[in-house]
């Protein structure tokens, strides 16, 4: 054991920097609201290891950073949602519930584990009166309700600002896809090989999540 005193400020600063560096290394995912619903566009070279996912009927997930870590959160979220929907009712599963779960989990890990999670996640939800929500949860568990668009992974803070300057009104899904792909291409130094596009949109059954490409 070391015998040196390290101030709490310093510990948190070090952990934050570590987590931020890890997240910056990753690729970016953009989530935004559209006229039809919610859209996820991810820069993802793999066609099989997804960055976006279904959590429940009207709740979607996007993760950035270390795959194993956000995958862990994704599975936990699905398990929580399915358990709640099974024991109570499908309508009782809420996006902010899942967002809270992630916030608690990430906050605990950041404070109590030696290594914080190097992840950033978004929980997106369409409520039953058709309002759309984007909940952003950062590596230390900070939970924020974002506007109509936000980016995670890579240099996401700057990109989020850029997007929010341009994307002020909801577009149609197809226009939004083109616009977000452009943002991602400008951001990336290399040519993007594969875009993972998925949506939360109303359809005939009550499970809104769909993969487009």
């Amino acid at each position: 054991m070391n015998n040196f005193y390290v101030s709490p400020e310093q510990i948190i600063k070090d952990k934050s920097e570590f987590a931020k560096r890890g997240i910056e290394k990753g690729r970016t995912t953009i989530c935004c609201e559209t006229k039809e619903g919610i859209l996820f566009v991810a820069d993802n070279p793999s066609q099989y290891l997804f960055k976006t996912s279904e959590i429940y009927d009207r709740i979607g997930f996007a993760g950035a950073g270390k795959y194993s870590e956000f995958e862990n959160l994704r599975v936990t979220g699905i398990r929580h949602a399915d358990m709640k929907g099974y024991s109570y009712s499908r309508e009782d599963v809420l996006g902010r519930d899942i967002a809270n779960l992630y916030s608690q989990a990430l906050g605990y890990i950041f404070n109590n584990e030696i290594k914080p999670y190097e992840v950033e996640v978004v929980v997106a939800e369409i409520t039953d009166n058709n309002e759309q929500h984007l909940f952003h949860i950062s590596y230390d568990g900070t939970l924020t309700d974002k506007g109509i668009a936000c980016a995670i992974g890579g240099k996401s803070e700057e990109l989020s600002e850029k997007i929010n300057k341009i994307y002020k009104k909801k577009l149609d899904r197809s226009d939004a896809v083109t616009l977000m792909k452009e943002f991602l291409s400008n951001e990336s130094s290399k040519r993007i090989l594969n875009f993972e596009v998925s949506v939360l949109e109303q359809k005939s059954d009550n499970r809104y999540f769909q993969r487009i490409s």
Partner: protein
Amino acid sequence: MSYENHLTNYTKSFTSMNISDYIFSESNHVDIKSLTPIATTVVALKYNNGVVMAGDRRATQGNYIAHDDVVKVYKVDDQSMIGIAGSAAVAFDLVKRFKTELEHYEKIQNIKLSYSGKVSFLSALVKSNMNLIFQGLIVIPIFAGRNKSDFFVHTYDALGGSYLEKNYASVGSGSSLASVFLQNNYKSFERDEAIRLIIDSLKTASNNDSATAGINLEKDLLPTILICNQTEVKEVNKDEIKNIIGLK
């Protein structure tokens, strides 16, 4: 014993009579073979481009008709469907659990469970009810659907054994009647013919089985019919059923 006491005892045993009363009335010996589901006929039938499943709507408690509009055939996902016979509470729970687990699997794995995966998972669910069998609370499902290329019908026994059926199968108290009817009338069918035949088989069962309901036009009660084809699982609506059997 007063007359009143006698009367209440008499009514109680009469209305709450269920399978356990029959089984345990003589001795404590449990004969597994006699543990067939009470109430219900559910039939599944393959046709040339899919599979159709139909169930009657009656729920009984002993010889009392408790409900006339119960649904016993359910869509599981867009590739499969399940029918149930037996103790209602346990059966609905089985369906709910089965659907939840399959959806959970799909979300975690990012891919649907295969048809044979669903068959063996359902086996395990039925088997997990084993302790209830000895109290007379038995559930027997019938399962049908498709994999990438073919359509299948599977039946189960009380211990969770699953059996692949060739062209058709049925469960419930009226199943032997329905099966005999299908045996005599089965050939290769188009969709509408298959629906007509499956309704006729339920009618045949309802004619002689008191726990199976027939068609009740006065209350507008028709059997629940689900169809699984190459693209989806869909309920056949009342008007279409009436058209097919010539009630309109």
